[in-house]
C-alpha cells in the first residue's frame, strides 16, 4: 500500500478526531468559564454511550426499529443531565473556594460515576457489546484500497453538524455572547446583569450534550462499552484541548483532529510506538507554544 498517508488513515484520523473534538469542546468551554479542569467530563461521554445502549436495547426488546435521531437526542440529554447535576451538586458549592478543592472534587465525581455505574446491575463492571447493527445496519464502501463504513459516515457527519451548531450558538446567539463575555471577565459580565450561574449551567449542559453524543458515536463505531470507557478518551480530549489552547473552541477542534491524525499515522509507522509519537508532538508544541495552538498569550492588557 506504499505510503502511510493513505486514504484509509485519513478517514480513520477524521473519525477519531471527531470523537475527541466533541468531548474536548466541553472541557474547553467549562475551563474557559470557571477555570475548572472537569475530570468527570469523560464520564459524561460514558453515560451518553450507556443511555444510547439502553435506548436501543429497549426498542429491540419491543421489536421496534430505533430511530437514530431519537437515540442521539437521548444520549445527548443523558450527557447534559449528568453534567448539569455534577455542576449543581458538586462544583457550584465550591465556586469561590480554592481551585484545588474543585479539581479534587472533579476527580471524585469522575470516580463516583464510574464506580456507581459498575455497581448498577444493569450496567456492571464488564464490557458490553453495543448493539450498533440494531440501530443502523452496516454497509461498507470501497474507495480504492480504503474501506469506509456507513458508521464512519454517520460518526463524522453528526460530529460536524454538532460542531457547526455549537459554533453558531457561541458566535451568534445572545447566550453564546454571554458565554464569551463571562469567559473573558466574570465580574464585568455580572455587572452587565448576567446571572453567571445560569451561564455556567448552560455551559455544562452544552458540553455534556456533546460528550453524550460522542458516547453514542463511539458505541456505533467501536461497539464495546464499559463504565471506564471515558477515562482514556477523556484524557486525550483534555490533551487535545490544551494542545489547541484551552478555552478556545476552534482550538479544541483543531487539537482533536491533530491528535486523531497523529495517533493514526503514528500507529501506521509503528504500532507499538504509535501513540507515543502523538504525545511527543504534543510535548513539542507545548514547549514552543505553551498557550497552545490557538490559545491566548497570557498577559494583562493595559
Amino acid at each position, binding site marked *: 500500500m506504499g505510503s502511510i498517508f493513505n486514504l484509509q488513515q485519513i478517514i480513520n484520523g477524521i473519525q477519531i478526531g471527531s470523537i475527541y473534538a466533541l468531548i474536548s469542546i466541553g472541557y474547553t468551554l467549562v475551563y474557559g468559564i470557571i477555570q475548572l479542569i472537569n475530570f468527570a467530563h469523560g464520564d459524561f461521554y460514558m453515560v451518553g454511550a450507556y443511555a444510547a445502549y439502553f435506548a436501543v436495547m429497549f426498542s429491540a426488546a419491543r421489536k421496534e426499529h430505533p430511530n437514530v435521531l431519537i437515540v442521539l437526542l437521548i444520549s445527548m440529554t443523558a450527557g447534559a443531565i449528568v453534567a448539569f447535576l455534577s455542576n449543581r451538586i458538586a462544583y457550584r458549592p465550591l465556586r469561590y473556594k480554592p481551585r484545588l478543592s474543585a479539581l479534587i472534587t472533579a476527580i471524585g465525581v469522575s470516580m463516583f460515576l464510574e464506580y456507581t455505574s459498575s455497581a448498577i446491575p444493569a450496567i456492571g463492571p464488564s464490557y458490553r457489546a453495543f448493539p450498533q447493527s440494531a440501530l443502523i445496519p452496516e454497509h461498507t464502501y470501497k474507495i480504492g484500497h480504503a474501506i469506509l463504513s456507513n458508521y464512519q459516515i454517520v460518526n463524522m457527519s453528526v460530529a460536524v453538524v454538532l460542531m457547526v451548531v455549537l459554533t453558531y450558538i457561541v458566535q451568534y446567539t445572545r447566550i453564546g455572547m454571554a458565554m464569551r463575555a463571562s469567559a473573558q471577565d466574570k465580574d*464585568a459580565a455580572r455587572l452587565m*446583569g448576567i446571572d453567571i450561574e445560569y451561564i455556567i449551567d448552560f455551559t455544562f449542559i452544552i458540553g455534556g450534550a456533546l460528550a453524550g453524543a460522542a458516547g453514542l458515536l463511539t458505541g456505533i463505531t467501536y461497539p464495546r462499552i464499559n463504565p471506564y470507557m471515558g477515562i482514556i478518551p477523556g484524557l486525550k480530549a483534555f490533551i487535545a484541548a490544551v494542545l489547541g489552547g484551552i478555552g478556545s473552541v476552534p482550538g479544541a477542534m483543531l487539537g482533536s483532529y491533530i491528535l486523531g491524525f497523529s495517533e493514526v499515522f503514528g500507529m501506521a509507522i509503528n504500532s507499538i510506538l504509535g501513540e507515543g509519537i502523538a504525545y511527543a508532538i504534543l510535548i513539542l508544541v507545548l514547549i514552543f507554544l505553551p498557550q497552545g495552538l490557538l490559545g491566548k498569550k497570557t498577559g494583562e492588557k493595559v
Partner: protein
Amino acid sequence: MPKKDGSVVLEVKDLVVSYGAIKALKGISFTVKSGEIVTLIGANGAGKTTTLRTISGLLRAEEGHIFYMGDEITNKQPHKIVQMGITHVPEGRRIFPDLTVRENLEMGAWTLRDKKLKQDKMEAVFELFPRLKERQKQSAGTLSGGEQQMLAVGRALMTEAQLVLLDEPSMGLAPMLVEEIFKVITEINEEGKTILLVEQNAEMALQIADYAYVLEVGNITIEGDAKEVAANPKVKEAYLGA
C-alpha cells in the same frame, strides 16, 4: 426623569467590608440624591473601589445596609442589582476585549428585552461617542485606552439604570481625554442620570460634583457641597496639591 428633587436614590449606612482580616471599610455612611453628581474622593487604597463593588453586590457587606430607592439591596446578587437600576463602570474599564465594540454594547443591554429600546440606546451611545460607531465591528481589545473608557461608559448606558457608579473613569488617560470624559459625565447627568463618581483626580471631580465625601482608609472624614469641600484647607493640602 426625576431631577434634583431631594429624594434619596442611594443610602449607605454603617457599611463594613473586610478582606480576610483587613477591614477595608470601617462603617461608612453616605447618601446620593436624585439628579446629583456625588463624588467620593480619596487616596489610593482608601476603599473607594471596595465601596462601589459592595454596592453592586460583587463584595459582601459584613455589617451595615445599602438601600436603593428605599429598597434594601445589601448582599443581593449583582444581576439583581443591575435589574433594579444600578449600573457600574468598573475600575480599569473591564471591557470584553475579544468581543466587538457592538457586542460589548449588546452585553451592556443584557437586561433589556425590547429590541427597539435596545436599538435606541445603541443609537444614543453612538451619538455620544461617534468613535464607537466607526469602530463597532472591531474587537474592543484593539481600541485605545480612551476609546475603551468611552466603551465602558457607553456599555453602562445601555441599561435603563437611574444610578451610574463610575470608578476612576479618568485613570490612565491623557489630560485632553480626561476633560472629555468629565464633560461626558456632566452630559449624562444632565440627561437625567444620578451619578456616584469615585476619583483620585479630586480637582476635576469636585468641579463637576454637587456633593462630595472624602474617604480616608475606610472612614469618611469630610463631607459637604462640592464647592465647600474644594475650599476646605485640609482637602486643598491633601488632594488638590495646594
